[in-house]
Structures are given as C-alpha cells and as structure tokens.
C-alpha cells in the first residue's frame, strides 16, 4: 500500500492554473477586434491596388497607420492565443513545446516586420 491519498495523487495533474487569464485576455481581444478588423480590412482593401507612392502616402496618414499598428499587435497576439490553444489540444510532448515556440516566433516576426515597415513609411 502506498501512503498517498486520491487527492494527493491528483494534485498537479490537472489544470495548468493559467487558463483563466488566457480566457479573459482572449475575450478582451475578441471584443477589441470587432472594431479593429472592419477598419483594417477596409483600409487595407482600399490601399491595395495603388502604386508604391500611393501606398506609402496612404499609410503615412495617421488613421490607416494607427488602425494597422493596432491590428498588427492586438490581432497577431489574439491569433497566437488561438493557435496555441489548438496546439495544446492536438500536439503533445516535445513537438508541442517546439510548435508553441515556433508559432510565437512567427507571430512576433510578423508584428516586427509590419511595425518596422510602418515606422519607415510614417517617419
């Protein structure tokens, strides 16, 4: 007989104790993006089709600039949480850890590329 109670055996095996924060952050970004996404889609669709000079001039204006900066940050971090949730559900062990790292690297890279481009255009 082992001197472990059923409760003791279960402690540490269940919740990662961080789900509520993830869930709350996701609810917040979900609601924020209800405003940002239509604005981003309309501004991006409007700018696509112009010449390089027209595109640069368009994104130098404050409104499309701010909308795109916000969508890049809030949107990519939201999608990163979506993808992490999917990975945590379907990929396990070392593959899961590497997939979490790779997707986080990808999301940060996209944000950096977009922000650096907009900084070059705007400044």
């Amino acid at each position: 007989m082992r001197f472990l109670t059923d409760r003791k055996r279960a402690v540490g095996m269940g919740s990662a104790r961080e789900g509520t924060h993830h869930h709350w952050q996701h609810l917040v970004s979900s609601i924020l993006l209800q405003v940002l996404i239509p604005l981003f889609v309309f501004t991006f669709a409007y700018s696509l089709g112009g010449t390089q000079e027209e595109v640069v001039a368009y994104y130098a204006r404050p409104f499309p600039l701010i909308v795109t900066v916000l969508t890049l940050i809030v949107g990519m971090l939201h999608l990163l949480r979506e993808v992490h949730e999917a990975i945590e559900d379907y990929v396990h062990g070392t593959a899961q850890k590497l997939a979490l790292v790779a997707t986080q690297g990808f999301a940060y890279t996209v944000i950096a590329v977009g922000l650096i481009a907009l900084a070059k255009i705007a400044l």
Partner: protein
Amino acid sequence: MAETKQSNRPLSPHLTIYRPQLTSMSSIFVRITAIAIFALAIFPAWWLLAAATSESAFAFIDGLMRSWLGDLVLFGATFAIFYHMLGRLRHAIWDLGYFVEVRESENMAIIMIIASVAMAFLVAIIF
C-alpha cells in the same frame, strides 16, 4: 485506495464518431479560420515592408497579391477574417451569458455564415 484504477465508465463521444452539428461545425471552423489567417498574416506585413523598401521589392509582392491566385486567397482570407471575428463575437455573447440555448446558438451560426460571406463579397465588389 491509491492504485490507479482502470475506468470502465463510458467516455464522452470522440470527435471522429460524433455526428456533425451546426453548433460544433461552426465552432471548429472558427479555429480553422484562425489558423489560416495566422499563416496568411505574413503577406500584408511583407507587402508593407516592400512598399517601405524599394520599387522592385514592392512590384514583386504587389504583383503576387494582385494576381488571380492572390485575389482568390485574399477573398478567402476576407471571408475567414470576418467569419472568425463573428465567431469570437458569438463566444463573447455566450461568455456574457446570453443566447446559450441550442436553437439560439444555431441561429447565430447561420448569421455568422451568411454575414461573413456577404462581407467578403461586399469587400471584393467595393474595393
């Protein structure tokens, strides 16, 4: 008392043998669209960086995104982004405690599908 017991209890139905329903399928599609947009997000970022860099860099990616394949992908992405947005709006409504009945959830799923397809066509026609 502390031995790991093999359970004979019935397990909840697994995804592969569960009858597809409007509620479950519309929810799974929220996840699929999220993964698709996540991967495609590199293209607008690349396009902006190219616009900030040089004429030739912009000409390449701009040509790619405005080709027929680019148009098709952008149309799909526009649908996906609006579908996902409305899917997350549905989750927010559920989280606040409203429309949690099956009938109401199914109605919201139908609205999500119709509205996101309509938005994709609207954006494609206007711009």
